């Protein structure tokens, strides 16, 4: 029952995000193919038609499409994670419906698990929609197979799950969706800003090294799957889940 309510409360947001991600994927794919075509044409005019030109075209298209998926993927993971996380069970406090929710014959932890299941599924679909929009253009350009592009998705999903967890936890602690959203945005900005500030201004490189390690999944030059970083973000998401479970269990109402 609560599953239905959670879905009902967030469905508009989810549909808008999926459509936006698909549109961005399709548009960026179209832009890349057009751009790569133009450059290959220039190359072909400069030297006789050679098979290498087509290899160049395929490689260029693949690289650009991969960059687009990583570039926009992190934005999609961020927005979907924050927005859907702020739709967590903590919003019931702000709406004044928590007293009613807790009269249901379910353990408190059940509501958190249900929220996480719905929210994470939506986030995975939203981030995936971005890559699915790009795939037809890979086939069109006869570029490398989709495996290398899809390989980046689990890391983005793990990152999105951690952001979702942060937003869901802050919503629970803040007791309302707007407060949770503001706190989680502040958390994300601090994570991005503070290590760079300490490094540039105070010449302390410990935090920036740690930050670079955790964000290497977003690097354009990385072509292999980052097991350790993906596990790190999943562990961060699990920590937020554990903290949320403890919080709701010991909260008075």
């Amino acid at each position: 029952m609560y599953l239905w309510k959670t879905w009902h409360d967030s469905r508009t947001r989810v549909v808008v995000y999926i459509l936006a991600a698909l549109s961005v994927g399709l548009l960026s794919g179209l832009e890349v193919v057009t751009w790569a075509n133009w450059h290959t044409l220039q190359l072909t005019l400069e030297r006789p038609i050679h098979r290498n030109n087509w290899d160049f075209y395929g490689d260029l298209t693949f690289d650009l499409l991969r960059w687009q998926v990583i570039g926009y993927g992190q934005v999609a993971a961020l927005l979907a994670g924050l927005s859907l996380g702020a739709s967590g069970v903590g919003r019931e406090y702000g709406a004044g419906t928590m007293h009613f929710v807790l009269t249901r014959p379910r353990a408190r932890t059940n509501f958190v698990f249900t929220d996480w299941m719905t929210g994470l599924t939506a986030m995975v679909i939203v981030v995936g929609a971005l890559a699915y929009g790009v795939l037809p253009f890979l086939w069109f350009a006869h570029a490398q197979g989709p495996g290398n592009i899809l390989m980046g998705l689990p890391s983005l999903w793990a990152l999105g799950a951690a952001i979702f967890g942060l937003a869901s936890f802050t919503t629970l602690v803040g007791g309302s969706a707007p407060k949770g959203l503001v706190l989680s945005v502040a958390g994300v900005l601090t994570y991005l800003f503070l290590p760079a500030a300490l490094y540039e201004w105070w010449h302390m490189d410990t935090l920036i090294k740690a930050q670079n390690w955790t964000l290497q999944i977003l690097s354009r030059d990385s072509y292999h799957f980052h097991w350790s970083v993906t596990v790190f973000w999943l562990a961060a998401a699990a920590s937020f889940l554990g903290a949320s479970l403890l919080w709701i269990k010991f909260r008075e109402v």
Partner: protein
Amino acid sequence: MFFWNCWLRNRLRLAAYLVLGCALILLGTLPVTMKSVDGHWVWVHPKTVEAAVTAWSDGVEHTAAVMMFLLLFAAADLGSLGLGESAARKEYDFLITRPRPRRHFVWTAWLTGLAQLCFVALIPLAVALLTLYVLTYGIYPDRLWLLCVGTMVLAALVFSMTFAMALATESRRNGFEVVFSLLIVYYVTRLFVGSSRGGLYWFFSLQQSPNTYAMGAYDWFLTAQRVHYFVPLLMIATTAVLPFLAQLRFERQDL
């Protein structure tokens, strides 16, 4: 009366932003006179005017980066707390029983938020000036005013946008989300358009200044050509027009 209602509602948030702003400003300005001596970073008092000017230049860059980070976030948050929050708290029914026209509430909420935003800008800025003066025994602000005005104009625009969006969607959260998404889309688009000098280049990026953390807010002011002053003017005009749109919406709302 409604002014105090709005002010008191945000007072704790305002205090939190001021503390955060001052802390970030100290984080950014204190290290400007640090030098590496025998492998250790220590504070060295500048002995020449040139050294003091260099320290001020660094301090101004750091202050500008902090102000942008702080003001944009505070603007989005304070803007969403205008009348959008009243809708969520179901205060409209009570509000419109007061012997005031509806536009009074819109403009009072808008002005209160803007006044608080000015506090968030001015007090950390004063702390920055004081810190840099204590460190260098001189005042060489150079581009500081220009950078801060640029950031303030952008922050005021974000504030107005969030204010109008929160009122239009009758939800503080939706207003914040819409403007946050727009900001991200703006910066991502800017990365692509700004690097390829497309037709919309003038809007997204005129010139990246190599010696600043400028990311969109300032380059309109710092561009060497100085032919695009209409962009900040456009931003100021939009900032002023948005409350009118919010007023129109609020006056036509069926309450």
